């Protein structure tokens, strides 16, 4: 379903999938708070690649508008996340997420 419409076909689908998996691995398997945000950023890159390669011949203008908006949103989310990391560091001198396991979901 996805692959027939992507520019140049499969290679974009595979790279998008690899980026998404790398991003999720980074979020779930790393303990540093900043690395978790790096993982979130990689996932956004993957989605941007999917949208642009999916809109390649015909819908490229709308696809660009979507990707620009997604990038703006990511900037705001990253800014909020990084300011929380700075505040956490000021409060407890460590950015290891394991020291933050006091509240067990």
């Amino acid at each position, binding site marked *: 379903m996805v692959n027939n419409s992507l520019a140049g076909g499969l290679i974009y689908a595979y790279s998008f999938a690899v980026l998404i998996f790398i991003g999720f691995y980074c979020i779930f398997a790393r303990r540093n708070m900043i690395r978790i945000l790096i993982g979130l950023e990689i996932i956004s890159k993957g989605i941007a690649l999917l949208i642009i390669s999916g809109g390649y011949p015909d819908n490229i203008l709308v696809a660009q508008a*979507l990707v620009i908006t997604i990038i703006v949103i990511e900037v705001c989310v990253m800014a*909020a996340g990084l300011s929380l990391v700075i505040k956490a560091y000021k409060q*407890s001198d460590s950015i290891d997420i394991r020291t933050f396991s006091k*509240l067990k979901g």
Partner: protein
Amino acid sequence: MFLFVFIGLPLVLAGFMPVITRISKRILPDILGNLCFFLLLVASLSIFHLWPGAGRFYHTLVWFDSNLNIPLVLDGFSLLMIFISSFVALSVGLFSINYLDRYGSRTLFYSIMLVLVASINGIILAADLFTMYIFIEAAGISSYGLVALGKNRYSTEGAFKYLVLSAIGSSFILLGIALVFVNTGTTSIKEIASVTFSSTKLGVILFLVGFGLKCALVPFHFWMPDAYAFAPAVLPAMSSGIFVKVAGVYSLCRVFFNVFGLSFAVSSAMIYLGIISILAGAFLALGQTQLRRMLAFSSISQIGYVIVAFGIGTPLGIIGGLLHLFYHSIFKVLLFLNAGAVEYATGTDESKSLGGLGGKMPFTSGTNIIGILSAAGVPPLNGFWSKLIIVIALVQAKMFLYAFIAVFASVLTLWYLLLIQRRIFFGKLKETLAHVNEVPFWMTLSMVGLALFCVWTGVAFAPFISRWILPAAQVLIDGVRASLNAFIIGG
């Protein structure tokens, strides 16, 4: 032009709030913020009076003779959610006039609340999947800000976990929208609905996971207790009262009822996840001693009821789900505001160190009793009718085991809520608490107003259903057809 007030007015006011604080730091932000919420409530009620009863209206904004093309959509379901959002915002706004004395930064709080309300109205009125996503993100970022207003390090931990899990949920939703865009070349709801989808199972799973993370379905509920436990009490009230419902349940229903059409796989998935949420929320709430954490698990359980009711798909199920959605906003906001009042008066809401506050805080304990009886579904309060309709819909769909589970979880709800209430409000007054008084005027007014609304909608529920809920249910029952037939209103 009129519909744009819901989004434009709070945004403009939020932008001017820092300027306003130069003039007066204490009174003017309160007055302007609450006046804005009150105007939104009046606007939603006046739309309701002009409402012809059915149909879905596209409203295009025309600005100085250039066709600006801001399509805003209004139908029965949107009208109900706009009313809920204005009502919850007004009650929380009134409550926070006194509550913010403990937190400082009053203007920042009102700015964030105004952006939150504007974004929530944007989600409801959007005509395009991607616009809905943008406003979901804006509302999410505002909620992270409200959590981070707390004072101790646990609130920072809760805020970070909330941010990461909520951003993962947004990524899933965005993946779903991207797949839909790649397959159809557009993100407008009307145009997607006119293309028949037969097999986008991957997109459906992505949307289910994404919206499930937003509305705290089990197994995606991990952020809710941590985020609510140490945040200022206005955050759980706004988040659980409005944000979880709009960004989670409302968007889920829009996508699955009006865009894709409810298929058997989606309906079963919603019922299973909902039943697991009901049970897990109820059992996990049993062992809690901190009031806000327990109410967070109770929220997970009640949202499970709503998702099960929507998953059944029959008209009675949809009516029950909408009714429980509305009533849950009212009584859950009341319960969270009670927890905030207890924390304001005594400095903690850990039930092990409290006791016997009933005599000292009569209004708080009285409204708490009404809230608990509503949440547990005791007649004639409002929770009873919504849970009854859900159970009848389950029996009608021949799911007798699930109906029994729903009733059993309702009994559990009554048990754990009464248990904590007994510990906090009844019993002997501890010596350390001898100095507490009743909370100040605006907090009491807000809580009593919510409690009276609980009683009124419980006793007089029938006209309420026929005038508010049935048009909303009709939109969902119509399914994909509802998004195709639309009337255009200009200017």
